[in-house]
């Protein structure tokens, strides 16, 4: 095809720009930041900004709709004097410890079951995920109905079967039952995450190891103890890490089921923070509650990631 003479410089010019551009993009020092920038913007807007605001609120006497002053760590000190906060602190550890413990134990059992040759394997694996997929507030409302003193199907069934004496346990009105109820719902909701992640870890363990152990005469328990569990450790560490953080920060379940009651016995950091900041209006104290465990959680993350790295490399 004939090319007009006056078009040549433009084409040359364009190709020169394109070449320069592609050379520029080839440089790692340019391309790397370019790829990271969108994520950094999102993190800055959605994570860093709220975090800095929370830090600012926590160190101020901020009250909704009123001017505030910087007061240093006074909120943190003051909180420790509060019975309700100390109770919440204890609740958070009891709730997280028991819930994560049950999720690990039941998660391993469920993953081992799902790893077996089952009928309708895919359907069952999909169904197991349901509690994790349904919006928590919605599913917790269902649980609230089941535990509600007037309509409790749990108590109705227990009484009908003769296991419980009427009127049955006061699930949401007695401190230990209420804690058991919120832990039950948390375990029910978090179990699929554990089971599916552990299942992924189980699938990746080479079959040859089991065959070799089997031929050496190792029983199922020995195979689990010496092969499955050690090879699952990195996966377990990551799952426990995530779950510990998420369970410490749980809000929906307690808010819907008990509102922190009875007598603050199920309050967690998030629900107490909401009560102080939104219901009472003390934004500063509310923010301090939500940040109280931040240093500890940073340490947990650091320690567990260190452990994972050691396991992997």
């Amino acid at each position, binding site marked *: 095809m004939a090319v007009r003479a006056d078009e040549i410089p433009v084409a040359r010019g364009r190709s020169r720009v394109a070449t320069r551009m592609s050379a520029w993009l080839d440089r790692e020092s340019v391309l790397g930041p370019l790829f990271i920038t969108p994520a950094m913007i999102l993190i800055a807007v959605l994570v860093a900004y709220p975090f800095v605001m929370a830090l600012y609120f926590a160190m101020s006497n901020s009250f909704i709709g009123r001017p505030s002053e910087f007061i240093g760590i006074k909120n943190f000190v003051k909180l420790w004097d509060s019975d309700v906060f100390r109770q919440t602190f204890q609740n958070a550890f009891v709730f997280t410890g028991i819930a994560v413990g049950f999720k690990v134990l039941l998660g391993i059992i469920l993953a081992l079951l799902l790893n077996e040759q089952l009928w309708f394997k895919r359907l069952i694996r999909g169904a197991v995920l349901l509690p994790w997929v349904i919006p928590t507030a919605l599913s917790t409302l269902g649980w609230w109905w089941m535990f509600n003193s007037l309509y409790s199907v749990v108590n109705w069934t227990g009484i009908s079967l003769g296991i419980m004496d009427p009127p049955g346990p006061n699930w949401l*009105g007695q401190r230990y039952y209420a804690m058991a109820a919120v832990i039950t719902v948390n375990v029910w909701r978090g179990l699929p995450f554990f089971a599916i992640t552990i299942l992924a870890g189980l699938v990746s363990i080479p079959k040859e190891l089991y065959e070799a152990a089997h031929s050496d005469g190792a029983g199922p328990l020995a195979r689990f103890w010496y092969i499955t569990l050690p090879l699952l450790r990195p996966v377990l560490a990551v799952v426990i890490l995530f779950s510990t953080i998420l369970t410490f920060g749980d809000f929906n379940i307690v808010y819907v089921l008990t509102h922190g009651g009875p007598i603050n016995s199920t309050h967690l950091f998030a629900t107490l923070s909401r009560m102080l900041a939104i219901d009472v209006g003390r934004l500063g104290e509310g923010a301090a509650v939500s940040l109280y465990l931040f240093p500890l959680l940073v340490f947990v993350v650091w320690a567990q990631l260190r452990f994972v790295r050691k396991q992997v490399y």
Partner: protein
Amino acid sequence: MDRITRRRFLTTSAGLAGILAARVPPARGQQREISYLCWNNFAPASDKKLAEIGQRFTKDTGIKLKIDHISHMGPQQAKYAAEVQTQAGHDLVEMRMHFPWLYEPQLVDVTDVVVEMEKKYGKVLSSGYEGAYVHGVWRAVPQYHGMFVATYREDLFKKASLKVPDTWEDLYVVGKELKKMGNPVGIPISQNYDSISTAGPVLWSFGGMEVDKDGKTVRINSPGTVQAIEWYKKMFRDCMEPEVLSWSDASNNESIQQGKAGWIHNPVSAYIVAKQRKLITADGMNHHRSLGGPQGRHETDTPRHIGIWKFSKNVEPAKEWIRYLIGKKEVYDEYIMAGDAFNLPVYEKIQDHPVLKTDPKYAALKGEGVQYHTYGWPAPASDKVQLITNSYILPNMIAKAVTGTSTQDSIAWADNEMKKIVAG
């Protein structure tokens, strides 16, 4: 098409430039629009009527009105907080009890509107003053009030020949029988507002109080509180079931509606809803006045008011809506009638409202001799009182006592918590 002359082009351009510079659209063609956030009324027909009145308001005034509803207290507070922090949201908000005190710096002075209402309908009830008259300025316009009375199963009382109680001690006597019949007394002792609405009158009628008249001295540690707690203890043991420790604001209503509770302390909403839903328990229900004690009879009143946020750009149209809804007698009457005696007029001259004659079961709602109190009485209303309320100290003190903590330790705990709040 008309030919555009040079003169017309220049005039139009200059006009547009002026509008852009001033950032204010011309009055002609400017659609005035306001938004109003209110709760889901416990008398649902009232919300329908409000929507209908809103449409008529738009037709009559040309001001577009958007009404949003939000569920009970928790979400409502979160919404207030979010709107105030972001300085954006609705123009008008419905507020309960002392909330105007909490949001005082953010609410427009509406004294002019309230003065007009008082001229027309008489003085606002004392509870309305307590809630919305903040430091000598009306921060919200009193809209209606709902008084706590007793709702009881008249049919069960008649069947067992029980006497309608007049004092809290009388209630203990009939409560024991009701529990034996499987229809216990239903007074919540949990982290909700109904718990406080009952604990207040019990405490007051035994001579107790949370904070003194000066608004600074915590007085919860008193013989009156001891008596009130002892009364709660025996009620919890002999007349109620432990479920009351887990109840929400709706639970006592549901309990009597579903045929379980024989007596509850609540505004008339339980009966209204039972009637509307045609529940079989509705016919058997009736009301009587709240109960008395050695130090008299005191009623919890829950006034509601409409406030306008200072960040609103439509303060005048917003006031116009309040004047339309409350200030037009025929509209206000229509609105009150739709609430089926749950929303009662909050102005003195219209207390004897026709809505009280729509059902003989509303006889207990007559205002004569009633001592209307809001939370925290006799302390003057303040943000501190609202903070004590919102921290659920009173119901938690009682809950501690009925579940094993000694009366003195429970009171000492409440005393300490209240003193911290009052100290700021």
